[in-house]
């Protein structure tokens, strides 16, 4: 008895432990693992690592582009300029636009989070750089003076007349074509402490550069720019009815055993035949009735099941909004609500499309479904390519195939411009056997 009671007690304790153990099982989803829409991500680390780290480095420095993890830079730049650069890109440099309104994928709130995060994470130590020349140039630079300054400050690393060793030429017209004046100014003032480029006051044995001198240097560099390397290429415009009812095999009544006399046999036979005729007639009538009823029953069922096929195509003219919201020579994402819907369809009716405005009223509107197997293609304005995430298919800006498995160009919707509004004829998922364009 004692052993049984002990066993029971152990069993109870074990069960209770296991019930509670489920709380800390490694497989249990944590709140942090909750799926979040990309436009609702608010964590600075996530936003930075997905959008900025590629060029600016994993920790804000040691990337190809100017380091953000540089208190000297953060001391001279204001939040508005950083926000503007991230949102709308920086013309004359490789910095792309990230705001949705400018063709990117981040909301304004997310860009603000990034800017604030950069400052709070890497901005300590800014006071030490309070004497730096201001971010924006305030004087007209003098190239001749700039040339002399170059010889004093820069030539020891970038070679005489900017042509070479040991740190590499900065007089290169290709290099200067990829850097704008503000970027040059920022680099000269803030330097690149991660890769060893001195800031405005780090030149050994030289006086710190002041704002006018920086402007002069930039002016001298800019005078050497504007000479694109010789190439004969121009920049192109930078898309049953089934009827149920089987008739069963007819069955007949089996003969009953014979009676004694011929006469009674004849009468019995006659009456049997009559009975058999009536019975088989009734059976046949019953089967026919059921067959008719089944056939009648099948009609509404078939009609119900085949309902999705009855319409002669699912196409309607749908408005994508005023053409003013589509800048010329750009491709932007537009979303329309599919008109063929039921109230409980949820977000599945928000159908996106890529709208490419050529100029004026000339458009191309592409379905996002890749022509290979239907995955959503993504437009990259920097490389002017649509890229599909599933099997690596790519398309040019006009929708033609560029590489990979897609067997044809992107599907296009017929469009029209009515009263300054862009309309497309859409409503069904594009397929190889029913393409719309």
């Amino acid at each position, binding site marked *: 008895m004692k052993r049984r009671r002990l066993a029971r007690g152990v069993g109870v304790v074990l069960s209770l432990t296991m019930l509670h153990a489920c709380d800390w099982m490694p497989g249990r989803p944590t709140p942090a693992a909750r799926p979040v829409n990309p436009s609702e991500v608010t964590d600075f680390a996530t936003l930075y690592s997905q959008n900025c780290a590629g060029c600016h480095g994993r920790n804000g420095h040691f990337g190809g582009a100017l380091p953000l993890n540089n208190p000297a830079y953060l001391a001279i730049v204001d939040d508005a300029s950083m926000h503007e650069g991230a949102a709308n890109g920086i013309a004359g440099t490789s910095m792309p636009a990230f705001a949705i309104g400018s063709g990117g994928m981040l909301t304004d709130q997310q860009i603000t989070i990034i800017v604030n995060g950069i400052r709070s994470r890497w901005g300590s130590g800014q006071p030490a750089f309070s004497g730096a020349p201001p971010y924006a140039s305030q004087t007209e630079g003098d190239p001749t003076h700039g040339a002399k300054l170059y010889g004093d400050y820069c030539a020891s690393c970038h070679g005489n007349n900017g042509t070479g060793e040991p740190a590499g030429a900065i007089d290169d017209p290709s290099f200067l*074509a990829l850097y704008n004046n503000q970027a040059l100014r920022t680099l000269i003032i803030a330097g690149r402490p991660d890769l060893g480029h001195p800031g405005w006051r780090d030149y050994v044995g030289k006086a710190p550069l002041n704002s006018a001198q920086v402007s002069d240097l930039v002016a001298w560099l800019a005078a050497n720019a504007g000479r694109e390397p010789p190439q004969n290429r121009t920049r192109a415009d930078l898309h049953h009815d089934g009827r149920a009812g089987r008739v069963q095999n007819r069955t007949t009544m089996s003969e009953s055993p014979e009676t004694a006399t011929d006469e009674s046999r004849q009468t019995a036979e006659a009456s049997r035949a009559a009975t058999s005729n009536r019975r088989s007639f009734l059976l046949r009538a019953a089967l026919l009735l059921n067959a008719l009823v089944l056939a009648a029953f099948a009609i509404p069922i078939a009609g119900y099941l085949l309902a999705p096929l009855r319409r002669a195509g699912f196409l309607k003219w749908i408005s994508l909004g005023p053409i003013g919201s589509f800048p010329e020579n750009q491709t932007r994402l537009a979303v329309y609500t599919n008109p063929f819907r039921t109230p409980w369809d949820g977000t599945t009716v928000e159908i996106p499309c890529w709208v490419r405005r050529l100029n004026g009223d000339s458009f191309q509107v592409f379905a996002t479904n890749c022509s290979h197997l239907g995955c959503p293609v993504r437009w990259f304005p920097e490389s002017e390519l649509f890229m599909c995430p599933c099997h690596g298919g790519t398309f040019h*800006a006009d929708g033609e195939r560029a590489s990979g498995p897609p067997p044809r160009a992107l599907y296009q919707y017929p469009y029209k411009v009515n009263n300054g509004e862009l309309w497309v004829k859409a409503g069904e998922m594009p397929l190889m056997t029913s393409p719309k364009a």
Partner: protein
Amino acid sequence: MKVQLAKLSAWPRSIGEWMRLRLAAPQLPNDDGFRVPSSSISWSYVFGSAIFVVLLLELVTGLCLALVYSPSADNAWQSLLYLNYQQPFGWYLRALHGWGSNFLVALIILHLIQVFVLGAYKYPREMTWIGGVLLLLLTLAMALTGEVLRFDQEAYWDLAIGFSLAGRTPLIGAHLVHFLMGGPIIAGATLARMFTLHVLVLPAAILVLTGLHLLLVYRLGISEWPMPGRLVKRDTYLAEYRALVEREGEPLIPNGLRKDLIFAGLIVLALMVTAAIMGPKGPNGAPNPSIIQTRPHPDFYFLWMEALMGLLPAWLDTIFALIVLPILLLGLLALPLISPTGERHLLRRPLSMVVAIVVLTVLVTTTWLGTYDPWSPDMNAWSGTPIPVAYLKGRTPLEMQGAILIQAKQCRNCHSLDGTGGMRGPALDTVATRLTRNELIRQILQGGGNMPGYGKALRPAEVDAIVAFLMTMHPANEPPARSSARPADAGG
């Protein structure tokens, strides 16, 4: 096993007897019941019962999930999150159901391989095999519809891929797809159809077929272990089998039951532990097609299909999916009609052996490739995967601009540096040892192979910078490639 109703007493001595008369139920198989050859009491034969146990588990967990899940397109995703985070043990039941389906498919495949290897599909068990293959197809259909019920972004796009493939059927493609979707797009009607299939139609078909399958196993006996030289012949097999059972037969219950129970118990335990450690799958992002930043991935049993679609040349896609695959399936179904008699031992069936090895190798390799799908570009590499720091040190300003452009122009989405970045194209770490400067410029501007041409999107300065950077991509002790058309002392 006819019930001797007359022999049962009208005054029963136990509840069992009372029930037996009123249910007209036969006696349970006892020691003299179902006898099988002793070589059939083998560990190789345990998979079938494990499948049945896991199937029951799936039914039970599925029923529990259906009590909370909302199969309406505007609520399904929210109900999945509710199951994960608020329903007590909801996450665990989701994990059991999801991992259970993986285990079920794996066990069915093992069972198929075992039956194939042992030649147990031959006379007179052809219908057992055909029923089994149909069960495999039904289970895969359950897996597919079940994945759709986890109605998130991945499910949405996997459906889109499936429908796009089906839409390639000539003549009826569009109508077929509209019928399957229940409308012009993937929406509430599609989810409702998948739910009906997954909860009502397919389980009923599976239960009926499983019952028939088990009945056939009972009626036709469990096949004996094959011996080389012991041929299956239509005139003699049944008599031989019966004689074998007479000679060395053992009751399946309890002798075989022991091994079945141990294996089934271990499998269920493994399933419970896996579910507790790995947790439920998803749901991932909301099923909103306007969220463009997405990368769909099928569940593991369809990774081989994804790999083949990604690796086959475009013109073979349709032929493979709509012609080759159905023919292979038909071949699998009709296997016992192709070779119903003859040798059963694998070593005397060289064609079967070769076919099995080839098919398994292809499936395993493509599934493994599908787990990390190298043919898919990494859509976030351009903005999220920086250039390795070692490649930035000691570079000139122009080369630094090239490094920036390799990010900004999305080159990293397809090309890796130091093992990071996309794998669609070749790694660029040693590209300068393979291509000269002119060859690099041509490749970038015109594309080729799986690479698009960038000519329209790059200015001459940008090409200059990118190529300058790429020309530094060679090991220190290896010189860059040079054109074979020039003398050795001139540049490349």
